[in-house]
């Protein structure tokens, strides 16, 4: 059962990573580690600014 649970957790984390579901958590971790004094963006603002950045370049192929 625990092997199954571990497998499921890995699959879920993998999917979250590939889809970008964990982007905000990773951003927070980065902010805490690198810029301890600064206030990070909140989730909503982060999501909005990420989309703007990501869709200004070619990120999908034929």
């Amino acid at each position, binding site marked *: 059962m625990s092997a199954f649970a571990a497998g499921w957790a890995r699959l*879920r984390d*993998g*999917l*979250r*990573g*590939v*889809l*970008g*579901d964990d*982007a*905000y958590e*990773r*951003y927070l*971790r*980065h*902010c805490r580690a*690198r810029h301890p004094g600064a206030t990070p963006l909140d*989730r*909503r603002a*982060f*999501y*909005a600014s*990420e*989309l*703007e*950045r*990501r*869709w*200004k*370049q*070619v*990120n*999908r*192929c*034929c």
Partner: protein
Amino acid sequence: MSTGKLIRAASWTAVAVAGAAAFGGIALHRGESINALWFVVAAVCTYLVGYRFYSGWIAARVCRLDATRATPAERLDNGRDFMPTHRSIVFGHHFAAIAGAGPLIGPTLAAQFGYLPGTLWLLVGAVLAGCVQDMLVLFCSTRRDGRSLAHLARDELGRFGAAAAMVGTLFIMIILMAVLALVVVKAMAHSPWSTATVFATIPIAIVVGIYLRVVRPGRVLEATIIGVVLLLGSVAAGGWVDSHPEIRAWFDLDAKALAWFVILYGFVAAVLPVWLLLAPRDYLSTFIKLGVVFLLAIAICILQPDVRMPALTRFIDGTGPIFSGSLFPFLFITLACGAISGFHALVASGTTPKLIARETDVRMVGYGSMALESFVAIMALIAACVLDPGVYFAINTAAGVVGSDPVTATATITSWGFPVDPAQMEALAASMGEATLYGRTGGAPSLAVGMAHIFGSAFGDGLFAIWYHFAIMFEAVFILTVLDAGTRVGRFIMQDALGSLCAPLGRTSWYPSVWIASLLVCAGWGYFLYIGVIDPNGGINILWPLFGMANQMLAAIALAVVTSIFVKSGRLRYAWVPGVPLAWLVTVTTTAALQKVFSDDPRMGFFAAARDLADKLAAGMLPPDRAAVAPQLIFNQQLDGWLTVALLFIVWTIVIDTGRGCWNHLSGRRPAPDTESPYVATQLT
């Protein structure tokens, strides 16, 4: 030798022998049919051997990948685009970005030559050229702060090379969007079920977008799961629409109306904020894409279908009904993305390198993702080849080639040696929930029939109609993603260009500029789409070769940049690694382009086709419906001819530029500076 080493050597020998045996089985098999599992074994073994040995050698000797060297993701970490990421996640990201409709459509069309040529080039081309290109571009960009291809081209080839790369990118995007839009339109024409399902994906994407923005910001996984469930529901709902006599009529649209709809959609999606439509649609398409690839591989292994297409057909002589042109060079032009795709260089530079945590990950991400993409192409080829060849040709050949009524069409195809009859086609269409499958050019419907056949048989219970429309929805979802994302990126490139003519037009968020630039991009691909729709020969036969040539040209640009970097960074000994694929691509694109420009055969040459049609029009030999569109088709053939000339010019400019730069460097006349970022030791553990 230790036991471990011995076991490893033995298992790699086994993989190599199994691959060689499967390859031999496919190549030498001469019978009624051959099991698709042979293809899977040959493919997997080829990729494994290529990955283990060739990419390993490239990584160690050619690139000299260094795990102690800090990558841009580490050095420039900003918690956003630059961020060290686990290599399997980067692999997933990169694969989702490079996998598109190209490797599904190209092999489907190329199946007109038989199964053998396509299989051979998909495997050999991927292992020796496509995977190598992706890996080397990713490597060069990673060593240069994750710079984009255009930036690398400017550094290596100078301003002219960079301008050529930019024009080439815009051109390939316009043609790509036109041909993909045409594929969707051909699949939806007079098919209420497909049309209703594809239309439903738009509100579903908007619901997901609102959820992600307003309800639960950034919770991509849960939003995607909701969206995917709704999409599956939309496939079933399409079936209900189809069975309802009144509602059915609303969605029973002809190709022209659908073309206008798709153009309007592209414009609106490019102008709307990304969070509303574009981004959520992309999340859905990524999820579905990964799922379907996985499912298809399992289904092929369970079902082990027989491939009915012969190894080679008579059309290798260039008289093919789906597209004209002989095996060389048009097999390579048509397969394009599944073996080597220039578009990948745009993702492998600029986006992916900013995530690479360790330089040694370049091998798995660059080489590995392309091997998987090529495997997707092999599965698409299998899906096309498990159909009865007669059925395959009946679906993929335009009415202008075989005639528009079932009796004539099936009789013509039977006369080619691929027996098919109207009753068989009617039964097939009925089982797929369609009124007709004749002349559904573009590859998507025949792929969907093949997938429905594989899924429906492997997972029991038939349900062919549901699987067919699921496959159409699957293809449409990411084709529409390419349309809106492509229009948007094209808009930025256009605004950049317009900005140099008139400064305010370069402001990316100024509304008049946004509208004008988006309108120009939509008009660009919309024009080719519209011509493709009114062309009785189906349009695909013109647009796909044009797309293939542009794609291979972009690959040539990328490889020229890599070759130039190799020569200037002390890797002259290994310059043949990108150099040989480069020479091959230049040969293929040049031959194809020259044939398309100078051939006297109206089925092949653009100018010859224009002259032929003009003569027929002048002599009054055309039926009234064809005469009405003839002037537009004549103009279009001439335009395509001139565009091909421009492509040729771009390719040779780049080649000459590269050669001159390398010569100047090697002869010591003008040694190029090292463009690599300096070595910094990694701190990652």
